[in-house]
């Protein structure tokens, strides 16, 4: 499939893509560290937002800055910056999330030359009624800061255009995810993640073009993947495509997920309001919560359960970045929720690299048990 090839290529050559975009458009590129960063506002300033990710290769360059007991993702991201992989970035931004990634942001700001760095406060208790006003004001301040730095005015029209492009992007990815409900999903879990990851690196307008073509093809796909054990992937940041390929090579289909390089990134759209920034704020408040934001209501639980039902999930892999405490607090509760609904779970802990042999054995055994249960 041409679109999937394109996405794979962008994921592999993400830095080259951003550099070419920059050369072609003359625009600025902004690295962001958390999916709570409201990309729409950045995009409206004519800036390309790209998510900073790790490379899953062993490194020790971050040890001088972040203690090894913080999550591998936060250290791996910083390592990429220190190694100069992101030297083309004009700015970096993060939104208030966990302490791990906050260190990445601050160490980046301290040690890697950059002309713009911005910390957006994103309330932790997003469901609190006062969070909306707070976030809207934060977005106003961000808009101003971006205008001052880029020299571009972010007009209402520019915001509308950006919202439209981002909403289209989310709608198309959601439509593609819908197709994964089929007994024979037309796209694998790894392919779906490549699509989402590419969206984080690409100009969304271009990504939309490829998504449309992908959707059309997938809708017409008659065969799809072999029906089999249907798995859900739940967890902290987990963009290790190698692990997804490994799991699917063992005879299971990853049909849905709840993590930030998957559905949590695009699940809901912005509902238009007169105050554009308030509408954007509302979208981030309404999106499927990350554990750092789910403080009192446990809103994640009914959402996860709904996905389990909608996608006819047989079992869930709870994938946890080693040392990730926000997810560490939620996992026991999610596990017992799924257990009470007869959904078996397998817990795996990932580091910068994964222990392939060990994971293979455990995933294989898990799939085998599920297979016997289904039969």
């Amino acid at each position: 499939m041409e679109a999937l090839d394109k996405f794979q290529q962008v994921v592999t050559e993400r830095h080259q893509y951003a550099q070419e975009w920059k050369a072609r458009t003359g625009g600025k590129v902004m690295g962001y560290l958390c999916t709570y960063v409201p990309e729409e506002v950045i995009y409206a300033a004519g800036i390309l937002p790209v998510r900073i990710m790790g490379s899953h290769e062993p490194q020790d360059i971050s040890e001088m800055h972040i203690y090894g007991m913080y999550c591998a993702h936060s250290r791996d991201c910083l390592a990429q910056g220190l190694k100069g992989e992101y030297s083309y970035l004009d700015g970096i931004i993060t939104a208030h999330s966990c302490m791990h990634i906050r260190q990445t942001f601050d160490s980046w700001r301290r040690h890697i030359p950059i002309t713009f760095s911005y910390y957006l406060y994103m309330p932790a208790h997003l469901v609190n009624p006062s969070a909306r006003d707070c976030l809207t004001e934060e977005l106003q301040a961000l808009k101003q800061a971006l205008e001052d730095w880029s020299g571009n005015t972010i007009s209402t029209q520019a915001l509308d255009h950006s919202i439209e492009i981002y909403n289209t992007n989310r709608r198309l990815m959601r439509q593609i995810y819908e197709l994964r409900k089929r007994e024979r999903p037309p796209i694998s879990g790894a392919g779906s993640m490549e699509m989402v990851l590419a969206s984080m690196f690409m100009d969304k307008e271009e990504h939309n073009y490829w998504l449309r073509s992908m959707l059309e093809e997938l809708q017409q796909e008659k065969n799809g993947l072999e029906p089999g054990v249907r798995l859900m992937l739940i967890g902290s940041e987990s963009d290790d495509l190698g692990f997804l390929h490994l799991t699917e090579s063992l005879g299971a289909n990853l049909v849905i997920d709840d993590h930030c390089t998957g559905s949590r990134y695009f699940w809901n759209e912005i509902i238009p309001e007169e105050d554009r920034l308030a509408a954007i704020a509302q979208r981030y408040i309404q999106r499927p919560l990350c554990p750092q934001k789910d403080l009192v209501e446990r809103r994640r639980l009914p959402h996860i359960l709904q996905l389990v039902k909608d996608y006819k999930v047989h079992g869930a892999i709870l994938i946890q970045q080693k040392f990730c405490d926000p997810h560490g607090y939620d996992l026991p509760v999610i596990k017992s929720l799924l257990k009470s609904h007869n959904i078996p779970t397998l817990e795996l802990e990932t580091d910068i690299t994964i222990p392939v042999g060990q994971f293979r054995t455990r995933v294989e055994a898990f799939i085998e048990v599920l297979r016997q249960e289904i039969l």
Partner: protein
Amino acid sequence: MNTLQKYETKPLDCWQRMKELRKDYFLSMWKAKERGEPLILGGYAMLSSLSAGLGDCGIFGVGPYFSRIMRDRDLAIRCHEAAEVKGLAADTCATLRVSLGSALLDFHNRSPWGDMVVPDFCIDAHACEAQAKTSLMLSEHYGIPFFAVDIPIIPESRIEIGKNYLISQMHQAIEWMEKVTKKKYDDELLLEAVQNEWRSQVCWAKISDFQKAIPAPLDLKMFNSFTTLMVSAKHKKGTADWLQMLCDEVEDRVKNQIAAFAWERCRLLHEGLPPWYNKSIMKLPQKYGATFIGGRMMFAIHGAFEVAGDGAWKVAKTPTERGIVIKNRDDALNALAELYLIYTPMISSFLLSLKVEEQVKVAQGWKADGVIFILDRSCKGGAAHHVEQRLGLQNEGIPSMVYEGSSADPRELQEIQVLDHLESFLQSLGLTPLPLT
């Protein structure tokens, strides 16, 4: 550093009063239900004034037995294991895990007379990831309602946005507490409590500041002992008055060169929470004439300071000292929001943007000869940026060492190795054991 001088030393006169206060608070907590007063879980050393408008309350905090558990290694381990059986990983906050574990073991809420006392509700200030997450679990355990006050970690240039958010949540919290307890909230009591909370924090900052003196009038162990009052009772008049008494006494000690440690010739800072269950790390340096005079974190956690753009601290003034009159609920909540968002470096440094600079300024200002960092696997909030802080010190030529461990999980500390390492560090500072020991 190698010259030997013996300073006069003596115990604190106000120590006994502190012990009485601690006992009073402990008893009033256990008696709260009997007296028909609300018993409140949570809080974690912030915004304790908020519940004052309900009248007398029992403040359960994170649980009254933390110190006892920390003195009993086996019990501490049993608490951790109980939480782990529930699925809580070993890298979650160990301090709070102990609390949850003791609840699961059914003694978190067992009074000294054997009654099981269930708190009425939980209210918690959430600045570090671990706080509301653990409080939620504890609230679910007890089946009680829970309110989280989300403390905004926001750059100073946009502090007004954060302040408005915090104030508005505190208004909600008051209404929520009225609903949950069916008690009328008394603003006068809130006003008084906020003044006390401010006074307590300013006093804490002053006693921290007195530690700049050579010899240091107090040591880190003493600060540890004072924290019990600060964690759940800094809004009480008794606490604020006692801290004032302590302040006066410490000032006197400085004037008269009364030391916490008679042979002080090397001054150390301990960064990150010290392992509560271990005494030898605090003690060993004394063999070399070195003493822990405090730490950035210990000063910052309860102290009210003005933080300058370069990370330097100055003891803050209370609203009254600044001529601000707190007349009503809005004023009180505004003063409380400012206390934590602007004047409490522990909170502002969760942003990390000045944490390195503050560390360097504290080491210089407090004339530290060395800084010891605990890389705490189970305190992600406090340990953040320790590695960067160490780099900052290195650039200024200030010696430092790190050791791995946990402030509240004894299984994480390799004591012998850490002591060896500490001893080598002290020797690398040019110290030799005191001839007298």
